[in-house]
Each structure stands twice: as structure tokens, then as C-alpha cells.
């Protein structure tokens, strides 16, 4: 293991291909406000080198602001940002080792693809032979070799975004920020490029930060996920863990597609009642709760329709809409507590208006208290 520490403000050492420097990006209680409006509140994160980190949250939840803070494009109103233990809060982005890929394909329109990819190296005064080597490497990794002499405007959207990614890659930055880079691409292109991304950056050892609004993307990218809601990080951890074990209702809602199904319950004097005065048996996961209001959350794949299922909670409902994609069927039912979405694998053609029995798998249910914190989660207890 190298004891060599590279100062983040010195890019030139990258020319010599010095690997093995360790890099941690830490945010300590960072807040950011613009014009009286708080965009980021009290965020603390610690990200290790060579990891893929996903920022998951709806639009305007602060993902872009957070990334700009990490890059050094904005200065936080309070809190510190540390790279490798060193405080970089005041250091300009030019002196940091950062590369950023945007949602809009940002390329120099008058330069060829080759020059576009080479641009950060030209700025760093890397010699021509090295430039050529690295550009060819990046172009090969992203499948751009046949297009090196064209200009970005002659390329399709997907290819333009690849050029932007190649430019970020060739810089060998310590920190690579991707702000919803695939959002403007066609569905299928998005799938393809998404699969390639971790592989493309794997060798560079950089910290990858990827912002997205889609839970499926987070699950496919793996790594760690931080869920954001209204400028706060509601949960951070390995992606699968954040998905399966949300600590807050905000994290569960953000990380569910189809949206999280919810049910409000009241526990009082040993009885559990729903909004329509129906009572539930006080046993199992509901037994250990204190009196108060709770929200039960359950994902679409944990409801089943049809008669004769054992255990769990059962409701009578009416099907409102059925959506079939071939692989999956989404059935929207109204069981008297708002519309719930049920996800079933395969093709299930249920006619709208039909009456069905809705069965919730209580082993996968989450119970959130009035403050939105997790109060009970049978799936965790089972695996504990």
C-alpha cells in the first residue's frame, strides 16, 4: 500500500500514473442557502475512493446543489468539505480534481470529437503523445473511434453524451460527478449506457457520484445510495440496504417505483383502527407499538390480488386501471384507502371495475410513526 499522499491541487502527478493514493470525500454538516432559500440543510457524508455513489431524489431535492458543492463550484453557507482529510472548502474548482457530466450534452461545438476529449489534457499541458494515447483509450472504451474527426453536432444524442463522458474520463479526475447524465436519452440508450458506466470508470479509481430521480437506476448501478428529500439526506448506505431497510418514510417514498402504497392506522388502548373504522388484529408487528398514529408502507410487489391467501392483511377493492408491459402487470386498485398499485410479474389482464381481494404481505411491511421514522419492519426482525 502506498503511503504517498497526493495533494488534490496538483493535477500534474497524474501524468506519471501514480496510483494508490487514497481519497475520501467528506462533507461535515454542510448547509447551502441562496437568497434566503435553504437548498441543502445539514448534510454529512463520507465517500470512499473507487466507489459508485448514487444521489437519489425528486427534482429540486438538492442533488445538483450538492454536487456543485462537492465540485467546488459553490461555497457552502456553513460546514466543511474535506478531501483526504484536508479542508478544501475554500479552494476553487480549478484547483480540484473534478470532472462533471451534465444532463444536457455539453461539448465544444466547434471542436472535433478528438479535440473535445483532449481539451482537459491540453489545458493541463500534457504532451502530445500522452494526449493521443489517453484520447484513444477513452474513445475505445466508449465506442467513439469511428467518430473522432466529426463535430458533436453531427452526432446523435447518445454519442454526444459519450463524448462528454470520455472527456470526464480522460481527465483522470479524483471526483467524477454525473448529474442525471442519461435523462435526455432514449429509454433504450439509457439502458445501454447505464450498464457501461460502472465498467468505464472502474479502472480509474475515482469517486463516482451519480444523481438520478429513478429508483431502478440506483438499484442497477449498485454501490451506495444517499436518498435526498427537500435538501436533506434522509438515508445513506449500500443501495440494496437503503432499499430494503428505509429508516424514514421519506427515504422509502423516494426509493419506490411504483410509488409506495400507504395506509394510515391509529393505535389506541390496545386497538388498531383504520380511517374507515375497521379494526385490525393487534398481533405480530403491530403488537409492540406504542399508542399513536402510524403509516404503514408497502411496495407494489408486496401486494397480491386474488382470493384464498393465508395470513397478512386483506381488503376488498375495485380495480381502476390495469397496465401491462408483458414482463409485468401494474394493477391500480381502490380499497377504500386511496389508490394502491399492485405489481405482478407476467401478464394479468384484470378488467377495470372488477372486484378483487387485495392481500398485503405483512412480512414486507414498513411501519412509520407520526414523525416519519421507522417504528417496525418485520422483514428486518426476521433476518436479524
Amino acid at each position, binding site marked *: 500500500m502506498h503511503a504517498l499522499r497526493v495533494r488534490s491541487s496538483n493535477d500534474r502527478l497524474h501524468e506519471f500514473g501514480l496510483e494508490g493514493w487514497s481519497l475520501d470525500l467528506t462533507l461535515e454538516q454542510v448547509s447551502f442557502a*441562496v*437568497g434566503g*432559500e435553504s437548498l441543502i440543510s445539514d448534510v454529512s457524508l463520507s465517500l470512499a475512493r473507487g466507489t459508485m455513489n448514487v444521489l437519489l431524489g425528486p*427534482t*429540486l431535492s438538492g442533488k*445538483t446543489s450538492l454536487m456543485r458543492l462537492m465540485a*467546488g463550484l459553490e*461555497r457552502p*453557507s456553513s460546514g466543511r468539505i474535506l478531501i483526504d482529510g484536508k479542508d478544501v472548502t*475554500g*479552494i*476553487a*474548482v480549478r484547483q480540484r480534481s473534478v470532472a462533471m457530466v451534465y444532463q444536457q450534452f455539453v461539448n465544444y461545438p466547434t471542436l472535433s470529437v478528438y479535440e473535445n476529449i483532449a481539451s482537459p489534457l491540453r489545458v493541463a499541458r500534457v504532451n502530445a503523445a500522452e494526449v493521443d494515447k489517453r484520447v484513444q483509450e477513452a474513445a475505445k472504451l466508449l465506442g467513439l473511434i469511428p467518430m473522432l474527426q466529426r463535430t458533436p453536432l453531427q452526432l446523435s444524442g447518445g454519442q454526444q453524451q459519450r463524448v462528454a463522458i470520455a472527456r470526464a474520463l480522460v481527465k483522470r479526475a479524483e471526483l467524477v460527478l454525473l448529474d442525471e447524465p442519461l435523462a435526455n436519452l432514449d429509454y433504450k440508450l439509457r439502458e445501454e449506457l447505464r450498464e457501461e458506466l460502472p465498467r468505464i470508470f472502474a479502472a480509474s479509481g475515482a469517486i463516482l457520484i451519480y444523481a438520478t430521480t429513478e429508483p431502478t437506476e440506483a438499484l442497477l448501478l449498485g454501490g451506495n445510495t444517499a436518498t435526498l428529500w427537500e435538501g436533506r439526506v434522509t438515508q445513506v448506505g449500500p443501495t440494496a440496504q437503503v432499499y430494503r431497510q428505509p429508516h424514514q418514510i421519506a427515504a422509502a417514498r423516494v426509493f419506490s417505483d411504483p410509488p409506495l402504497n400507504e395506509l394510515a392506522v391509529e393505535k389506541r388502548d390496545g386497538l388498531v383502527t383504520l380511517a374507515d373504522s375497521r379494526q385490525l388484529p393487534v398481533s405480530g408487528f403491530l403488537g409492540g407499538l406504542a399508542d399513536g398514529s402510524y403509516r404503514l408502507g408497502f411496495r407494489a410487489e408486496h401486494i397480491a390480488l386474488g382470493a384464498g391467501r393465508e395470513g397478512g392483511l386483506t381488503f376488498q377493492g375495485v380495480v381502476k386501471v390495469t397496465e401491462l408491459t408483458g414482463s409485468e402487470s401494474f394493477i391500480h386498485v381502490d380499497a377504500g384507502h386511496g389508490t394502491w398499485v399492485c405489481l405482478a410479474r407476467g401478464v394479468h389482464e384484470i378488467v377495470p371495475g372488477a372486484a378483487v381481494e387485495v392481500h398485503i404481505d405483512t412480512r414486507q411491511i414498513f411501519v412509520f410513526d407520526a414523525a416519519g421514522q421507522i417504528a417496525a419492519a418485520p422483514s428486518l426482525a426476521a433476518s436479524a
Partner: protein
Amino acid sequence: MNDKPVNNRAWFFVLPVLIIVLFSALLPLMTVVNYSVQDTIGQNSFFWNGAAWFRELLDPTTDLGDRFAGALQRNLVFSFIILIIEVPLGIAISLCMPRSGWKVGPTLVIMALPLLIPWNVVGTIWQIFGRIDIGLLGYFINSLGIDYNYTGDAASAWFTVVAMDVWHWTSLVALLCFAGLKAIPDAYYQAARIDGASRLSVFRNIELPKLRRVLVIAILLRFMDSFMIYTEPFVVTGGGPGNSTTFISVDLVKIALGEFDLGRAAALSLVYNIIILAVCWLFFTVTTHLDQREGRPS
């Protein structure tokens, strides 16, 4: 308050500009302030006069105050009139300008031409243009039977000065609005067609709201420029007939260079400057307030 990340080398680039601004603007400005609080009894000796000049300036019963009040009134009326004419006219012209195809280039060039002419040349053009003996405009109007003589008649003088400003500056409003209109996505026009909206409806409900920001800039620029106007009317009318077209700037030059009354001129300059700054600040606040209400871009 937190500053942006610091890069000290940048100051060296700014230094030459700072020196130039210092000598061409700051030092003269301090000199003017100096003059405005002093009086002289000739031979370059000055004594402290406090705010006396300012008091005299703002008191309409004194000669200076009276002249100032009159000139200020004329400036405001002038600015008001040209805004009333130039803004709607500019919008109307921009609506007629072609937005795509080969005609765009030549149209833009023609519209830009009046803006490129040096201001005293503009004045000279209109001075000759308006003459009743050899000027096309003057001769033509008189031949229609209307009494027109900008050297003798105040109304004619105003008409000439206003017409000249409209001819000179409407293009600016038109070009700004043209840029604003070009930025409107096609989908809005398509949706309006599908909704069966009339041309007037499209203007009122799509184009005008989207032009709001551009119009604020245009109005601000035109107000400031017209309020500070000097060269063009001075070349044409010299402030006359009488003092019917004597604007503040014209009067100021008369006091400072004609009568060599530095104290009064300095006071007048400063008050003039403050009025313009106040208007700018007002417009700036209004624009940023508008921006905030529409939400910041994400």
C-alpha cells in the same frame, strides 16, 4: 458573508482598468463634489459654501432653482413622450420582422443602421432635414400648409426633437423585442393555432407575457438615455427657441462652460446623477423582484 474562492493574480489584470477609471471618472467626480460645496470669488480661490448651492438648486423661487425645475420638467415630459411612442412602435416593428429565412440578415442590418450613426451626426442630419428652406421635412410640412419652423416655434422644435429620437432609437427597442420573440418556442404558437386563438390573442397571451423581461430592459435603457440626452437636441435647436428645448444637460453645460459658474454646475451635476441612479436602482429592484417571483431556474 462568504466570498467566492480567492485568486489573487486576477487583481493584476484589473489594475490598468482601475487606474484608467480612477483618472477619467473617480478623480473628476471627487472634483465635482468638491466644487459643489465651495464658492469662488475668482482667481482660483475657494471657500466653503456648505449645502448652499443645493438649497438654491432645489428652491424654485431662485433663478437657478427655477431653471432646474423647468429643465427637469422638460426632461420628464420628453422621456415620457418618447417611451409612449418608441415602446409600442418597437414592439410592433419586431412583430413584423421576419424570424427565419434569407430576409432576417438584411432586416437586422437595416434596423441597426440608425443605431450606428454618431449622435452629433444624427443631430446634424435632422437639423438640415427640418430646415424650412432646404430640408425635405421642413419644406414638405410647410407645403402642406402646416406652420412648421423649429427655430421659431416651440411646438415644432419639440416635434423635431421627438421625431429625431424616435428615428434614432426605436430600432433598439425593436431589436431587443425581436430577440425576445425569437426565444419563444414554436410549440406555443402551434398550441395557439390549435386553440383557434386570433392574432391579437396570441400577442396578448403569449408574446407580451414572454417579452416582459426584455421590455423592462428596453424601457430602462431608453429612459436612462433619454433622460441624459444632450448632443442631438443641442445640435438641432441649441436649447431654443427660448428655453423650450433646454434639457437639464443643456442647461448644465450653459452654466458650467458658458457662465463658468462651477459651484452651481457641480451641484446640478450631482443632483442629476442621483436622480438617474435612483431610477436605475428602482428598475433593478423591480426586475430582480420579477425574477424571484417566477422562481429561480433549477
